[in-house]
């Protein structure tokens, strides 16, 4: 079957088996290997991409279900010569060790900062109507992204740094 996707602003038509996940389409058909496969079961967040602007686990998306959708991957966030504020902060604060989870962390954090700015609450928000960025909020909101190297404190520092730059 055939599916049309807009990935990082470019439209692609991909031919595929109905079983294809969005993660495999991105990596194997489109060569966008920045998006990682960790668990393939929604448990680690390494495969996080933006689907029509919202973060999702691409390993739990069937390509066939996303005809006409817009996807942003880490390659669409920035490149070595023009890094996004979050990417710069991860480098500057050493927000990784092996780096395997990092694309997923950055995609997730990109969406997370937007969610807080829009007033979207989390489980730890004292007030469901006025969430504020704090270390505890970041830990909760980023809990869908595991880091096997346990770089969590520096990941949160990097996100906090990028959030300040934006403000």
């Amino acid at each position, binding site marked *: *079957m055939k599916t049309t996707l807009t990935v990082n602003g470019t439209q692609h038509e991909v031919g595929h*088996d*109905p*079983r294809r*996940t969005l993660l495999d389409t991105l990596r194997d058909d489109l060569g966008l290997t920045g998006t990682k496969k960790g668990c*393939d*079961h*929604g448990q680690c*967040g390494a495969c*996080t991409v933006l*689907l029509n602007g*919202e*973060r*999702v*686990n691409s390993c*739990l*998306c*069937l390509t*066939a*279900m996303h005809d006409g959708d817009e996807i942003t991957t880490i390659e669409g966030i920035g490149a070595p010569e023009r890094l996004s504020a979050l990417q710069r902060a991860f480098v500057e604060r050493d927000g990784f060790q092996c780096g395997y989870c990092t694309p997923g962390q950055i995609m*997730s954090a990109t*969406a*997370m900062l937007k*969610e807080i700015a829009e007033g*979207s*609450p*989390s*489980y*730890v*928000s*004292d*007030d*469901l*109507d006025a969430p504020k960025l704090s270390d505890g909020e970041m*830990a*909760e*909101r980023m*809990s*869908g*992204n595991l880091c096997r190297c346990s770089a969590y404190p520096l990941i949160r520092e990097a996100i906090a740094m990028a959030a300040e730059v934006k403000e």
Partner: protein
Amino acid sequence: MRPFDYVRATAPDDAALVSGQIIAGGTNLLDLMKIQVMAPETLVDITRIDGLSDITTEGDGLRIGALVTNTALAQDARVRAGWPLLSRAILAGASAQIRNKATTGGNLLQRTRCPYFYDTSQPCNKRRPGDGCAAKGGEGRMLALFGTSEHCLAAHPSDMAVALTALRAEVEIRTPHGDLRRIPVQQLYHAPSDRPDRDTVLEAGDLITAVILPAPLVGSRQGYRKVRDRASYAFALVSVAGSIQMEGDMISRAHLAYGSVAPHPWTDGAVAKMLEGQKASDALFARVADALVPDRAPHPDTEYKRRLLRRTFIATLRQLTGLADTSGTDIARTQS
């Protein structure tokens, strides 16, 4: 995954719904298809059916379309104000990425997290009735305390369903003949009996079209308390959802439900009777907890849940009735 045909339903009366397996957010079904615990021959994508993605007011309550995402529901301004218990319970589950895809209908129908259900090398009556139950004599920390049968001891894992039960919500189901019926959330689920493979009362072709949320108890305090192995992104070991209305220091109404302790959100009418009309006190809560918690657990590994449920119940009631300080995380007061 086993090969399957993919079809897209365009309307609630699409014929494909009768013969195929519905997929909505896919976050539970694809997970199970990858390990071939589920292997449908036809997958029916319902995400493009119009009219199932909105939250609208209905009387003093809300009508929540079956395709409304968990994220959209938890952050809806009306839900945050009137049914904060529902927002909290949804936000206590899964991760932001999963909640962005997970739907209201799919969340109710997610399958158990018993590890043997996931392990196709082990016998499991929920996968294939008559095969046996590997959890008996095996690992059982996640299993249920109430409502089990000798054929299956598994618990239902949804946080949202527990909140909806305490809030007295109903599920709207469309049959293939086009009839709409409404049943309380709890009645969606089957007791395991000798057919634990049948989680719910849904028949082939039945489509969940909406969840109907009635008006909240006026002035109620609502809370959802979830206990788990890590602070976030883990299924509940025990949870308690409550909506309590007080007159002074007397409890006038107590709507409660308990999660991860039964094959469906658990309720106990005797508990509400013991609480209503009484002055809130530690002695009362201890007595009611004795009545709620069973004398024995059905599996040695869930003995701990007896004490955990007791403590979580008491702690939640103390907060909901003002005996204990409330942390914003667990308790919220509804307006007017």
